């Protein structure tokens, strides 16, 4: 009854092939000529079509290398509606789907034992659910975004989902989104984690209606089982991937939740891929993917990584990870900015004593009155907006053959967020008071940390400020945040001897760097801008008097 499918002769001199991927799962109903798997030789890849219709029973697994002529799978009940499932591999699913037409006592018993698995959703009607299938499509998430990457499925294929329950996380080059279910029902995943899909494309289907349990619909049942072999390949332990892979031990679970790391982001080295306490201790949040940002800032995660990986003697592990789409976009943009602009950097230094004195004197009163701390950022933003209005080229940008000058100052601020650096924008910063700026910084930083920033909050800035100083940077040449034309880099404050009125004094000094696009900003403008910022910071009274 079962038809053995053998590896066909694919070419002279080819004696064996590797199974690159099963496109159908064990137990799936396959149609004649439907492609069931991809084979790979050292010369080419091939598709293997089904030689008959029936139920697929996989014999050789993904990654296996098998000789030409060997059995790769079998197709049961070739040409027939149903067949008796092999006793050793009966899973409740199969017995359920087949029990409609089979009087085999075994499957009947199995069906009775597993009532909550649901009533078979019979293709010819008469089943439980409404039978309606809703295609879930990627919604429009923002202008200029044409595709998104599925960063994580939060529900598995076949899961019962409730209306508005979050199904998966999507990632564009700008932000992450959650996709809620548009109806209650059984989830059928179409696109896999890591796939990049276009806006409007179907990402999954929902079989509407509760309790429709097992379906015989030919919707591809790729999800969980299909994803497992891939996990196995990456898991540290030699053992196989099982239901328990990725299970954190009780202590490991606590450590991970305190670190805010999902167990699914950790490779377990315990038996069958379990996550041990040591795994959890060594786990790091996913390497941050900074937004298009200064070199100083993007260097920071790298520095953190090398610090966190202790150079244990003799250990020479290296690790490969797929680049997230965010990271890829960042990489592409940074290179294009370097290639397509005439970027250079001018430096200056600021004596921070006056601002530090003001802060020391007024920070309590400021806090009491405005309920927000008085930081350096407000002074820098304020000074920049004054200087930008005096040197409009620094606040302008090139658009094709035209230059766009902006009468407003929308200042992008680099903020550390869980997924990397993001650059939310303070709108019309020129009109804000110091406390207004501080409040906006706090609000945006909070939203960034909670991953709640929307794309509209991160686009449209006219000038960027980045502070590599928080990571300890002394001096850097930031990269412009395109399409803007200039970026100010703040650095750490260090006590240095300086000459004040011909006396050597120790002052808290900060180097400032302004990277700018020489195509639109002349040296006179950029240098004058930076000198002006320095003046305003060293004598904040000027901010008040407007001089």
């Amino acid at each position: 009854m079962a038809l053995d499918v053998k590896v066909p002769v694919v070419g002279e001199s080819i004696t064996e092939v590797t199974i690159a991927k099963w496109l159908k799962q064990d137990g799936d109903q396959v149609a004649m000529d439907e492609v069931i798997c991809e084979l790979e030789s050292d010369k080419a890849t091939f598709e293997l079509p089904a030689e008959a219709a029936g139920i697929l029973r996989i014999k050789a697994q993904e990654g296996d290398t098998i000789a030409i002529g060997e059995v790769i799978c079998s197709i049961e009940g070739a040409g027939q509606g149903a067949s008796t499932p092999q006793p050793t591999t009966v899973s409740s699913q199969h017995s359920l789907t087949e029990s409609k037409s089979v009087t085999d006592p075994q499957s009947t018993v199995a069906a009775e034992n597993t009532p909550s698995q649901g009533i078979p959703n019979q293709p010819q009607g008469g089943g439980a659910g409404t039978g309606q299938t809703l295609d879930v499509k990627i919604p429009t998430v923002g202008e200029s975004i044409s595709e998104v990457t599925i960063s994580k499925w939060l529900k598995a294929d076949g899961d019962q989902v409730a209306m508005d329950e979050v199904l998966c996380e999507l990632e564009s080059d700008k932000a992450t989104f959650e996709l809620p279910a548009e109806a209650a029902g059984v989830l059928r995943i179409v696109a896999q984690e890591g796939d990049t899909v276009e806006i409007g494309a179907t990402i999954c289907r929902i079989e509407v209606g509760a309790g429709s349990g097992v379906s015989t619909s030919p919707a591809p049942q790729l999800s969980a089982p299909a994803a497992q072999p891939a996990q196995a390949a990456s898991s540290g332990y030699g053992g196989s991937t099982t239901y328990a892979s990725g299970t954190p031990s009780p202590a490991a679970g606590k450590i991970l939740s305190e670190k805010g790391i999902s167990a699914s982001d950790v490779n377990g080295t315990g038996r069958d891929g379990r996550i041990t306490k040591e795994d959890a201790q060594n786990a790091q949040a996913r390497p941050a993917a900074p937004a298009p940002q200064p070199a100083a800032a993007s260097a920071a995660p790298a520095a953190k990584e090398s610090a966190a990986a202790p150079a244990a003697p003799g250990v020479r592990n290296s690790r490969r990870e797929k680049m997230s789409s965010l990271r890829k976009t960042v990489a592409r943009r940074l290179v294009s900015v370097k290639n397509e602009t005439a970027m250079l950097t001018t430096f200056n230094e600021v004596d921070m004593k006056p601002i530090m004195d003001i802060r020391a004197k007024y920070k309590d009163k400021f806090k009491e009155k405005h309920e927000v701390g008085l930081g350096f950022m407000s002074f820098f933003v304020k000074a920049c907006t004054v200087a930008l209005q005096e040197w409009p080229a620094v606040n302008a940008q090139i658009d094709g053959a035209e230059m766009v000058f902006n009468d407003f100052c929308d200042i992008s601020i680099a903020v550390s967020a869980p997924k990397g650096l993001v650059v939310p924008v303070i709108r019309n910063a020129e009109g804000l008071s110091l406390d207004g700026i501080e409040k906006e910084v706090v609000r945006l930083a909070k939203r960034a940390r909670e991953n709640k920033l929307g794309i509209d909050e991160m686009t449209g800035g006219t000038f960027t400020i980045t502070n590599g100083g928080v990571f300890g940077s002394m001096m850097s040449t930031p990269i412009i945040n395109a399409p803007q034309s200039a970026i100010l880099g703040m650095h750490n404050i260090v006590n240095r001897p300086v000459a004040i009125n011909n006396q050597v004094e120790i002052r808290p000094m900060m180097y400032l760097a302004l990277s700018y696009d020489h195509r639109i900003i002349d040296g006179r403008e950029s240098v004058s801008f930076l000198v002006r910022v320095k003046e305003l910071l060293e004598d904040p009274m000027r901010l008040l008097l407007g001089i």
Partner: protein
Amino acid sequence: MLLCKSGYGAFSHIKRKIMKYDVTVIGSGPGGYVAAVRCAQLGLKTAIIEKYSVLGGTCLNVGCIPSKALLDSSEHFHNAAHTFKTHGIELDNLQVNLEQMIKRKGEVIKSNNDGIAYLMKKNKVDVYNGLGSFLSKNTIKITGQDGTAQQIETDKTIIATGSKPVNLPFLPVDKNRIITSTEALTLKEVPKHLIVIGGGVIGLELGSVYARLGAKVSVVEYTDAIIPTMDRALGKELQRVLKKTLGFQFFFGHKVTGAQVEGETVKVTAETPKGETVTFDGDYCLVSVGRKPYTEGLGLENAGVQLGERGMIAVDDHLQTNVPGIYAIGDVVRGAMLAHKAEEEGVLVAEIMAGQKPHINYNLIPGVVYTWPEVAGVGFTEEQLKAQGVAFKAGSFPFKASGRAKASMDTDGFVKVLADAKTDEILGVHMIGPRAADMIAEAVVAMEFRASAEDIARMSHAHPTYTEAMKEACLAATENRAIHI
């Protein structure tokens, strides 16, 4: 008395300034004192308030510990009377000295009381004796037994006031002939006929104590089984063994309608399943129909803490009440009334307060009955798996096939392992037999790591031990390939 007086002296000294704490724990049972120790370990300034003069709560003073003391004593006697001869030990004039048994039990309690007091001192937890009640969310009044009152202030509070036995309105406890577990731990004589109302853990354990010492024990139970929340196979086996070895009589489906004391006799009336009225004549009647959360005098209304169903304090997943900063743990909140559950919750709350993110897997808190044979279970019961429609396989191994059990003449009982039909993951372990209460720990460890039945089957278990039964049951569950049966 002298101790008491010096205590008052200390109080009057403290009274002058209001003490402020990061955390105050109300109740010093296993939930409360463990929470206090963990809070102190995490650097929080901690106080604990206990209504009674000794620390340890129900568990230590009138629960787990004293009952185990008497269970062990009575089991020794039972063995001496029934199995020593077979072992080749002959005794003349074997007698029960109940007074000494109760005295030893008291010493065990005292030693543990002192132990907890030491732990409080070691961890610099301030102990207040008296009834703690909220004046407001952050102020707690402590009223001593002599009526003196003092106040403390606290940032956060853990309510760990526990539970007390349920009384039935038609069955007034006189604490003399009609008694609760508390009195059953201090009887002056071995009952001739002890009528136990309720076939739960407490009734069976205390019934066992006196049955072993010679009492006739009748268990009157409203439902159709003993220990009905555990896997049904365990109750069946326990019922069989208690009948066989201790002469227990069970009356199921009986609805007790009243009890009357006439001199030294207690007459318990009940309705049979057929609706007929029957009377049980005994000399003592133990009412063990359950326990209820205890929140009397706590002044919850002053703090705004709301109660949930059945008098429990309503809490969220972090065991926080509706009032931020006030938490509740143990018997006073939802879940099984077990000391070890309360302990886990005490640690959890302390760590949450310290900003950590601990988690309790409530499904993996084992249930234990300290009869002999002991009964223990963890995870899903067979009944639950069937109700959920989970496809599972079961493997059992009886102790009568265990070499070690035969050597010690403890051949009653079995270990039953339930595993997922497809993945072989262990979903539940249920055992009745010698040292089952200790052996269940292996199952908890295995299930916390989501081990499969075959995983356990492939781990070496020392021979000859009772734990081999666990391994064999796992072998049976794996592919029905137990070796020794």
